[in-house]
């Protein structure tokens, strides 16, 4: 590989392309040739680094880690001269530090530790050589030349690695099950369905470091004795699909996939399959049905996939993140990994932070860190310094935890005891303006729509819960509703066929447990304290502050606001749909929610 002293990574997500990322790459290349720097500075493409709202394509320069943004083609000659010839940072184009919150993946914060995200944003995901330059595929080489499949399984087992896709089952144990199962054809499957709204770590890893997933899968296949693998990616992630396909082709051309990998007698190949927008396909038996080309309906277990999986053959499914960690364990040793983390949860976990927290984006922290540390130290606290109300973990099958739980150490067991789950690491932070009854209703709407309908408790039960919650949000709740809700939660949880139904009541149950007073106010006083539930609120314009600027009237989607210029306006409650746009855009805070 040629030696470059600088690497320029230009973001080529669709937005940057639209804003001329490719033209910028060409211009950079031409200018580097012109200034005689083309052998020293390498221009690369990378997935999203910027924020779609900036006015031009984004690029990062390494090793300095400088982020330039708002670049136009005319800026290129100056930038190249300043940064690469004279070695000075062209400060007028750099991204200011305060905008850190806009980046999906920023420089590691204190308390962070990056194992899974080690390469994300640092290397060109479309170039296998960059992965190799950072010790990529060394673990595979080690396994194939120095370790037996049994030793590989033992190493992963001793590391304490548990599945990152939800249930947290020990990965090494799963591999042993499939290794011991009888059958000539065995399958290794990667679950990249990432259906939890609020989680995006799997997408980032696939788009930013696809080879770590490929390498992890090959090692797993070697340990399990699998000869064919599939990566099942959700249809909502077209860039991840493309990146994984490119990575697989590159690995194949390097002899890392296909027959006799690295000259050994082990053969394995990989293929990408796409989902088509069904949440339940993240469940392992449903996912396999989908790969087989069928409706993605789960089936009862046993038999477990390790005995009877894809096309009735022994199969093993792990999450993207689980696979991406494996090469690091092989390289650094089981003990290194086992020493990171907390009790029975070893290593690190990525969390996708979203909602009302200052720094949204992806983080990776050792297990055992508290929720408070994550939200306040890494996440920078609540937006606009409002009050924290709840954090939702684990997606639609997880729960909402209030302030009292912020001291909890993050690990599989602690969250489960608190009535939530770790799930795939989505963290949606909610401030005081959130209505917890409305949130419970929102999740129920989700699970109700995504229930595949195969089993009655999940199909009918979730609909019943949704009806009751909708009624409560409309101010038509009855006191006995709370008892009915609890009963339904219990029955659905106990009698459903798959994890979707078993977990579906969690958002309702946790909000009933921790925010019962909000339910009571809705039911007894017909009031929504957070002023979210539309049937229970009304919008009014206050006389004093309103200057009659007409901004609200012009932006009202249903023309419900009337008034002459420079005179106080009024909202017609019969037309108003309570969308809240007026309140948000009024420069004088003249809109009141009652």
């Amino acid at each position, binding site marked *: 590989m040629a030696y470059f002293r600088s690497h320029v990574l230009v973001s080529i*997500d*669709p*937005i940057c392309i*639209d804003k001329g990322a490719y033209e910028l790459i060409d211009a950079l290349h031409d200018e580097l040739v012109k200034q005689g720097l083309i052998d020293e500075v390498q221009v690369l493409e990378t997935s999203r680094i910027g*924020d*779609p*709202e900036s006015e031009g394509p984004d690029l990062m320069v390494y090793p300095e880690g400088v982020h330039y943004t708002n670049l136009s083609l005319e800026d290129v000659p100056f930038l190249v001269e300043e940064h690469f010839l004279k070695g000075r940072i062209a400060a007028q184009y750099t991204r200011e530090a305060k905008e850190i919150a*806009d980046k*999906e993946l920023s420089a590691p914060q204190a308390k962070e530790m990056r194992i899974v995200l080690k390469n994300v944003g640092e290397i060109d995901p479309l170039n296998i050589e960059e992965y190799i330059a950072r010790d990529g595929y060394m673990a595979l080489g080690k396994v194939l030349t120095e370790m037996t499949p049994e030793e590989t399984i033992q190493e992963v087992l001793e590391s304490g690695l548990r599945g990152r896709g939800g249930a947290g089952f020990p990965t090494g144990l799963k591999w042993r099950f499939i290794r011991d199962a009888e059958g000539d054809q065995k399958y290794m499957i990667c679950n990249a369905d990432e*259906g939890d*709204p*609020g*989680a*995006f770590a799997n*997408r980032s890893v696939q788009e930013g470091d696809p080879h770590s997933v490929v390498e992890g899968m090959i090692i797993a296949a070697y340990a399990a004795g699998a000869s064919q693998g599939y990566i099942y990616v959700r*249809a*909502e*992630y*077209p860039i991840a699909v493309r990146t994984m396909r490119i990575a697989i082709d590159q690995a194949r051309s390097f002899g890392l996939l296909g027959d006799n990998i690295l000259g050994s007698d082990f053969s394995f190949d990989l293929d990408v*399959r*796409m*989902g*088509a*927008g*069904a*949440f339940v396909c993240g469940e392992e038996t449903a996912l396999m049905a*989908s*790969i*087989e*080309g*069928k*409706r*993605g*309906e789960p089936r009862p277990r046993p038999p477990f996939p390790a005995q009877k999986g894809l096309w009735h053959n022994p199969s093993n499914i792990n999450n993207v993140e689980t696979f991406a960690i494996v090469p690091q364990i092989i390289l650094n040793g089981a003990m290194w990994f086992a020493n990171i983390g907390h009790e029975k949860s070893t290593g690190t976990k990525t969390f*996708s*932070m*979203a*909602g*009302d927290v200052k720094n*949204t*984006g992806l983080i990776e922290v050792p297990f055992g860190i508290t929720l408070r540390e994550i939200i306040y130290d890494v996440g920078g606290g609540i937006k606009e310094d409002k009050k924290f109300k709840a954090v*939702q973990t684990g997606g*639609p099958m997880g729960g909402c935890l209030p302030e009292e739980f912020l001291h909890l150490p993050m690990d599989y067991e602690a969250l489960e005891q608190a009535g939530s789950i770790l799930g795939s690491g*989505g963290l*949606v932070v*909610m401030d005081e303006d*959130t209505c917890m009854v409305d*949130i419970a209703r*929102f*999740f129920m709407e989700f699970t109700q729509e995504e229930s*595949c309908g195969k089993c009655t408790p999940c199909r009918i039960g979730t609909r019943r819960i949704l009806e009751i919650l909708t009624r409560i949000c409309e101010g038509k709740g009855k006191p006995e509703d709370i008892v009915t809700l609890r009963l339904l939660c219990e029955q659905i949880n106990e009698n459903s066929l798959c994890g979707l139904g078993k977990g579906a009541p969690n958002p309702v149950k946790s909000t009933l447990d921790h925010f019962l007073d909000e339910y009571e106010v809705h039911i007894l006083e017909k009031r929504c304290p957070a002023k979210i539930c539309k049937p229970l609120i009304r919008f009014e314009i206050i006389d004093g502050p309103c200057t009659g600027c007409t901004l609200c009237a012009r*932006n009202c*989607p*249903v023309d419900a606001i009337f008034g002459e210029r420079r005179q106080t306006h009024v909202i017609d409650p019969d037309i108003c*749909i309570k*969308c*809240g*746009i007026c309140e*948000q*855009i009024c420069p004088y805070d003249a809109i009141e929610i009652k």
Partner: protein
Amino acid sequence: MSLKTLEKISTEDPLNDVEQRVIIDQILDENKDIPGATMVVLNRLQEAIGFISPAMQVYVANQLGEPVSRVHGVVSFYSFFTTIPRGKHTIKFCVGTACYVSGVDQIIEKAKQILEIEPGETTEDGLITLELCRCVGVCSQAPVIVVDEEVQGRVKPNRFPKTVQDLKSKEA
């Protein structure tokens, strides 16, 4: 599929369009022998043609040697597969948790007002289809909309009209 059945289907159907027919046959040719072909073929058809008409479902079933009911069952199970054509452009609104909490509702209301259609519908001139979608995985930029293939983050209701304007001027 016999010629006779083909005659019965609408002249508007992609199967009766010479160019689209070539694409359909090519997709079937390339994929019909791989394991689990149904999903792969349907995904490719949805992407290339934009929808999977009832006639196309029958055609796919015949070519893959599957019962029509099974292909139809798969198409109806997955929300990504649509059976009627969409507009030239689609605007999808993410209704995932992060986007819900960040007020995607307001943007949907604005869109309904400007385009005078509901999500799931297409404007009369066939230009724009509105859709709701599941989390697209850029939650840190919530609220998020997807205009054709382009993800737009931190969308504000009063900036939405410009998005529509841009699509219209692209056509003009």
